[in-house]
């Protein structure tokens, strides 16, 4: 097991990981009689890439929805930056600095790429309607700063060439990237990615992996991701939570998880010698 002191740990590739940003304590989530998540606890540390994996229906997406406030668990606590988080609605969680993407892409299809990315800055705008109407003072400064940040992220994710294209016309792979840009532009303290590589071909997957690593490296963003593709997860993530039927069956570095017998049985299949 990793050294889980207050100060964090050093990853295999030499990155320093900080203290705990968010801690899930004994989370249980039910839909009627169905238990989607059963008494799960884990933590997320500053600057790490944390993966949640598991077979279909294991409760991974539900877990992400708990973190982002789309679901409220019946039992357990979410500790965010040292204090217990009260029941919150998704927009409140977003305003706390937790950004996310969706498994089935949720973009504003009728708006351009730039407009989509700019919506990610809405919570950084404080100017009053009056200021905006006359385009003076704060309104102007904010708009310029927000636009700069948006352009920076657009450059970073290499989507400059489609800045003015309505998102509805883009192919799937690019849409995924725009969604990442919109989440990233809000300068989140935690970035949640729900199957960022689902439905992509090998080349697109490689691109997306590179972007995820670059984001983490360049901005030091803490990333929590759900992914099906085992190879990708093992390459990308620093620590992995493995879920099966709503329960946690493993937690640790990719190497540790890979050698965990329960995980092998449940998810990776029994090895053929």
């Amino acid at each position: 097991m990793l050294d889980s002191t207050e100060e964090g740990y050093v990853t295999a590739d030499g990155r320093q990981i900080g203290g705990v940003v968010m801690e899930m304590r004994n989370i249980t989530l039910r839909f009627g009689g169905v238990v989607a998540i059963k008494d799960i606890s884990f933590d997320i540390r500053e600057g790490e890439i944390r993966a949640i994996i598991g077979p279909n229906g294991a409760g991974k997406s539900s877990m992400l929805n708990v973190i982002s406030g789309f679901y409220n668990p019946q039992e357990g606590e979410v500790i965010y930056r040292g204090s217990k988080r009260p029941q919150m609605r998704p927009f409140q969680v977003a305003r706390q600095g937790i950004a996310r993407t969706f498994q089935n892409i949720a973009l504003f299809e009728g708006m351009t790429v730039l407009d989509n990315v700019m919506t990610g800055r809405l919570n950084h705008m404080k100017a009053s309607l009056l200021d905006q109407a006359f385009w003076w003072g704060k309104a102007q400064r904010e708009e310029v700063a927000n636009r700069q940040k948006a352009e920076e992220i657009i450059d970073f994710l290499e989507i400059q060439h489609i800045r003015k294209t309505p998102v509805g016309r883009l192919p799937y792979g690019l849409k995924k990237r725009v969604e990442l840009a919109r989440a990233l532009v809000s300068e989140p303290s935690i970035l949640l990615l729900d199957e960022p590589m689902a439905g992509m071909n090998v080349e697109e997957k490689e691109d997306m992996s590179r972007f995820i690593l670059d984001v983490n490296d360049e901005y030091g963003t803490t990333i929590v991701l759900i992914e099906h593709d085992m190879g990708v997860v093992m390459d990308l993530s620093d620590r992995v939570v493995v879920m099966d039927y709503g329960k946690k069956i493993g937690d640790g570095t990719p190497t540790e998880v890979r050698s965990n017998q329960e995980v092998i049985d449940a998810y990776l299949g029994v090895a053929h010698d």
Partner: protein
Amino acid sequence: MPDQLIFAMEVTINGLLNGVMYALVALGFVLIFKASGIFNYAQGVMALFAAMTLVGIQQGRVPFGHLINEIFGTDVHYFGWEVPALAAILLTVVVMLAFAVLVQKFVFKHLVGQEPIILFMATIGLAYFLEGVSDLMWGSEIRNMDVGLPQGINDAIDAATFEIFGYGFFIDNLDISAAIIAAILVGGLIAFAQYTKQGRAMRAVADDHQAALSVGIKLNYVWVLVWTLAGIVALVAGIMWGSKSGVQFSLSLIALKALPVLMLGGFTSIPGAIVGGLIIGMGEALFEFSIGPMIGGATENWFAYVLALVFLVFRPQGLFGEKIIERV
């Protein structure tokens, strides 16, 4: 120039100006439909209510006067003051804001995620409720609307056209001011939607609720905002139609005139509402002028609907509506 052509020009201009009035009503529908997917049957009644409130405030009437007199045995009808038009309009805007907050809080907040038909039914209920409230608050007599808009024939146009064609066009000043005010209103709405934070949030909610939540937009806030805007548009439409034909119950039926405009222009497009209104206004005026006399006249009552039906066959999404593509 032949007389017929000159008459046709006059009819066209008047038709276009009428179309602006239709567009004003249609605009209110589009705003709410775009942002929340609700087809707001109550839009016409909102125009009636807004106009009644404006007149009531202006004349210093006591709201719920009848009710108060009935219960307490008093005999109050007027406060005894008159409110200037501009102040009365601002107060009416505040009333429409309060209406938006209440509608969201007591009706649509509880219906989030329901089928469109259920939301539609709710707006039908809302329409009758609001009609009742309007009656109870201000009474049901016909009122004159006078907010100081110019009325009557425009002498300048009359003189100028007489100079050119030897025939003076009859263009009503009220129609001209309606067109100017509508243009300002639409310009303002578009600027608001495009360039302000609130407008951006509004467009985002119109497009995708889930995505809007994930970037930290409070849906309730945006919906209240949209209902307020629709209330303001209803107020403007109410002022225009009220100045033209008096504030009375039939004002709420102008909503029916907006339906063919929406089918033509598309339910989701602000420019569509404008162009649709203009086409319907001009089309029905020209049709009445050219074909009307052959078939006994009064074609204005049905022409718009027939035109809308023809459009439904060839372009079900309307002229500017978003294309409906569904994958199977």
